[in-house]
Every structure is written in structure tokens, then in C-alpha cells.
């Protein structure tokens, strides 16, 4: 008997989250086709201008169109946010599954490696790499992606470990199934859902990390817009025009929240315990 879960009512919130993600996603994909002013063109007379017919959300401190910068920023945030965890989920997922299934020295090595990697402060890593290797979207995706591998490895290993002990995997072995068939047919379908849920939560974290790096001025190279750098730049004029920082902050918050909501709903499907992290 499934215990009815307490807490949030998933329906409406989940729907809102999906609508918001669809909206942001479309805006990012079709940014070049939309009738928007250039995100980098400065209007020195219109610094911190209030919204008008041409600039729906006003201008930033250098007179660049806010709406256009937000939408182009979405491209960066989403591409980094979606691509970086792909590295983690494939490498980490595979590593974790192999470690959890075969156990033995491979597992010891993997777990030890994960422990070592987790000991290093991830933001420092990311900062060091972008400083020394240069600020670019590709470097950003690579470094954030690699930093995510240990977490995915842990999740995949834990789920696989609990599955390997289960009778249906033993049954497959007793039937004479090969290891690769067991991994692909019996284990993968059961690991896929928790990993996907974790992937979505990873997307949310990645967007935040990218935001933090850009906020420090070490993410995407300027003048390309990114939500994090917009917040960082807006911070300078917090007393004059607080909306310059708060507008991108709200958009980023909503997006991260939406990914968290979707990921959490998916996780709730796999985890009978209510409200687990």
C-alpha cells in the first residue's frame, strides 16, 4: 500500500514549472528571430532608462536593452545548465553502475576517487580553470560537467547497489544472462528514472554555479549577457536602480525553481519516502 504523500500538491505547481521552462526554452532557441534590440548595443543616453515602447523592460547601466539581455542570457544559462550535467550523467552514471554491479577493487577505486574529488572546493576548481584556460562557454561546460561526475557516480552506485542485491537480478544471473544484458536490461531501466531526476536537479545547480561564476566576472566573457553577470553588474547600482539586479535574479530564480520542481516530482515517483532530499 503506497502511503499518500504529504506536502506539496504536485499538479498545479508542476504545470506552472513546465510552462515556464517551455517559455524560457522557446525564447532562448528563437532569440535571434525575435524582434529584439541587440543585447550588446549601448545607448549612452538611455542608461538605466525605465521601460518604454521600444525597451519593454528598460535599459541597464550601460544603456543596453534589458529584455534582450535576459533572453540572450537564457541561451547561455540553459546551454551550460543542460549540457554540463550530460557529462556527469553519462560518465558518472556509467561509472557508478559498473562500480555498484561488479563491486570489488573497481568499486573501492571509484569510491576512493569520488571521495578525493569531492574534497576539493568545486568553485575554486572552476575559477582556476576559467582563469588559466580562458573564459569561454565550452570551458565552462567542461569544468562544471567534470565537477558533477562524483555526485552522479554516487547516486548511480547507490541505486545499482540496492538493485544488485534484489532477487530479480539474481534470477537473471541464474537464467544465464550475460553481465552486459543484466546491466542493460535489468539494472539500467531501474537506474534511469532516479538518474534523470538527479539530472534535472543537476541542471538547477549548474545554472546557479554558472550564475555565481559570471557574477564574479569569471563565467561567460563580457559583453555577452548572462544572468549571473547581469546580477553582478546590477549590484553596482543597487541604490539607484535595484531592479537591474533583481530582474535577472527573479528570472534565474524562477528557472532554477522550475527545474527543481520537475526534478523533485520525478524523484518523488521513485522514492516512497515523502519529502526526501
Amino acid at each position, binding site marked *: 500500500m503506497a*502511503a499518500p504523500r*504529504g*506536502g*506539496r500538491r504536485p499538479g498545479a505547481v508542476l504545470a506552472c514549472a513546465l510552462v515556464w521552462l517551455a517559455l524560457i526554452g522557446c525564447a532562448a532557441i528563437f532569440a535571434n528571430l525575435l524582434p529584439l534590440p541587440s543585447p550588446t548595443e549601448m545607448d549612452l543616453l538611455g542608461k538605466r532608462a525605465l521601460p518604454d515602447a521600444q525597451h519593454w523592460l528598460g535599459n541597464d547601466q550601460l544603456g543596453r536593452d534589458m529584455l534582450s539581455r535576459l533572453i540572450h542570457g537564457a541561451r547561455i544559462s540553459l546551454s551550460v545548465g543542460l549540457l554540463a550535467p550530460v557529462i556527469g550523467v553519462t560518465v558518472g552514471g556509467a561509472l557508478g553502475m559498473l562500480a555498484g554491479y561488479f563491486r570489488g577493487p573497481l568499486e573501492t577505486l571509484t569510491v*576512493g*576517487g569520488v*571521495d*578525493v*574529488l*569531492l*574534497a*576539493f*572546493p568545486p*568553485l*575554486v*576548481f572552476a*575559477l*582556476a580553470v576559467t*582563469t*588559466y*584556460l580562458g573564459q569561454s562557454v565550452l570551458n565552462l561546460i567542461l569544468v562544471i560537467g567534470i565537477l558533477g561526475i562524483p555526485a552522479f557516480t554516487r547516486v548511480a552506485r547507490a541505486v545499482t547497489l540496492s538493485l544488485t542485491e534484489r532477487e530479480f537480478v539474481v534470477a537473471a544471473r541464474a537464467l544465464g544472462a550475460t553481465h552486459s544484458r543484466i546491466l542493460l536490461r535489468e539494472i539500467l531501466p531501474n537506474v534511469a528514472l532516479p538518474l534523470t531526476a538527479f539530472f534535472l536537479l543537476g541542471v*538547477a545547480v549548474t545554472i*546557479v554555479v554558472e*550564475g*555565481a561564476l559570471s*557574477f*564574479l566576472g569569471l563565467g561567460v566573457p563580457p559583453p555577452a549577457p548572462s544572468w*549571473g553577470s547581469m*546580477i*553582478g553588474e546590477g*549590484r553596482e547600482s*543597487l*541604490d539607484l536602480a*535595484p531592479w537591474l*539586479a*533583481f530582474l535577472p*535574479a527573479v528570472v*534565474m*530564480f524562477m528557472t*532554477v*525553481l522550475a527545474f*527543481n*520542481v520537475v526534478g*523533485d516530482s520525478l524523484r518523488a515517483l521513485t522514492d516512497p*519516502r*515523502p*519529502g*526526501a*532530499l
Partner: protein
Amino acid sequence: MARFVGRRLLYLLPVLLAVTLLTFLIAALLPGDLAYTMLGDQATPEKIAALRATMGLDLPIWQRYLHWLGGVLQGDFGRSFRTGETVLSAVADRMPVSLELMVAAEVLGLVIGIPLAILCAVKQGSAIDRFLTGLAFAKLSLPSFMVAILLIYLFAVQLNWLPATGYVPFTEDPLGNLRSFLLPAMTLAFAEWPVLMRVLRSDMIATLQEDYIAMAKAKGLKPARILLVHALKPSSLTLVTVTGINIGRLIGGALIVETIFALPGLGRLLVAAIYSRDFIILQGVVLFVAVGFVIVNFIVDMLYAVLDPRIRHGRA
């Protein structure tokens, strides 16, 4: 118990060794010639070669590692070639600031998180539980640099109650010191309590469904004792883990928060070292931070055994 500690210690050593190796490799493999960077404009091939020889940079990489490790084991972490400061004194200088921030943030986070978690678990599904879990969930999506800006805007810009940035040493002005720590600690605590609350709440809800809680009720124990003695302790394992990870992270200073609030902690030291390409400081501080993280996690493992006798007796 002794065997348990021994086994964990045996695992700790290779991990620590791997941490030193990786730290060394990162700094060694980063592009850019150290000698060239140090000499700057005056660099001539001869000078570079001479400097490389005196610094041992021309040796094979494994020799350099062993040499470095030997120094580390004797407490010699190296010296910044920019400021001449030793790594050890730089860390000792910044450490208290980061530690004070960490302690303040953790205490605040736990003081807010634990009671709310217990409240939510007891009143699971009620309006207050739904409100608090919803709030905590939303808060998870609010990164600390946003919270920092929000708090600065509110308390420094609008209300003008607290300083937006700056640091006052405790020895100079205790009250000013507390005031300068309030906003950054609040920022970090804001990131902590939702995580702690969610973790403890979900574990606690699971525990409250256990037979031994039904048994405790059937024994006619008082509700407070059931909650605080019978339910809290077995529910606190994940809470301890998460707190441990957070402490381990914050030992290295809160990069973003220290930068925003201009606190001279380890986080800022790291950022400055990266900006100025000061390998030696970077290497030393990263090693220090990573080793700190590993040790904190080791302590958490030990705490597990204290909290749960099943682990202690090897029947986990």
C-alpha cells in the same frame, strides 16, 4: 569500535595521499611557466633557466612532488613569490575569519532548521508543514549571491542598519565585529536551514512511522520524550552528514559571500591567488582546504558510530 576506527583510518591515508597528489598536479599542470610568471618583464632565457634550476622546476615531475610532499610533511607549504608571505602564515591570518563565519552560519542554520523540521514532521501534511516545506523548497533555488544582494539592499541600502561590506577585527571592536558578520552569516544560514530542515524532516517522518515509535507510544511515554529521545537520534544521521559536508565546504571559506561582503577569509585568499596567478598560495590553501574536508568527513563517520550502535558493532 576500535576496529571500526582503525578501518576508517586505514582508508583515510590513501585518500589523503591522493588529495596531495591531485593538489600538486593541478598546480603543476596549469599552463604558464612559474619562472616566467615570477620574472615578468625581466624574463630572459638565461634568467628563467637559472630560476628554474634553483626552484627545482627542471626536475622530473615525480621528484618535484616528493620534494614538495616532504616539505608539506615538515610544515613547509611554501612561500608566495608575490608577497613573500608563507602559506602557513597566510592561512593562519585568514582562518579565524572563515571559521567565525562558518560557526555563526552553522549555528544559525541548525537553530532555525531543527525545530522547524520537528514541527513539520509532527504536523506532517498540515498547512504549516506545507507552507514551510514550500518555502524551504523555493529557498533551495535562491543562490546565496542573490540572498546577499537582497539582504544588502534591505538592511544596508534601504534601512541602513548594518554595513554592506567591510570587516572589523573582534579584538578592536567586538560589537562592530558582530555587526560586520551578521549579514554574511545570515546569507549562509539562509542557504543552510532549508537543506537541514528538509533532510531532518523527511528522516523524521520515516522514523515516526517505525514500529519502535508505535511501541514508545504504547508504553505511555510523554510526547516530548518520544520526539526528542526516541525519534530525533535515529533520524539525525543524514543531518549530521549534510552538516559535516557544509562545515567541510565552509572551512575553505565561503568564496562568494566573502567576496561580496569583503571579508578577509580563506575564500578571498583563494580568489586573490587565482587572480594573481599565485601558484604556491593556491596550492597550499587548496591542500589545506581539501585535507580539512576529508578530516571533517572522517569525524562525521565517527559520529555515525556514536549515534548508531549498529554501525559501531559492525552490523550496519
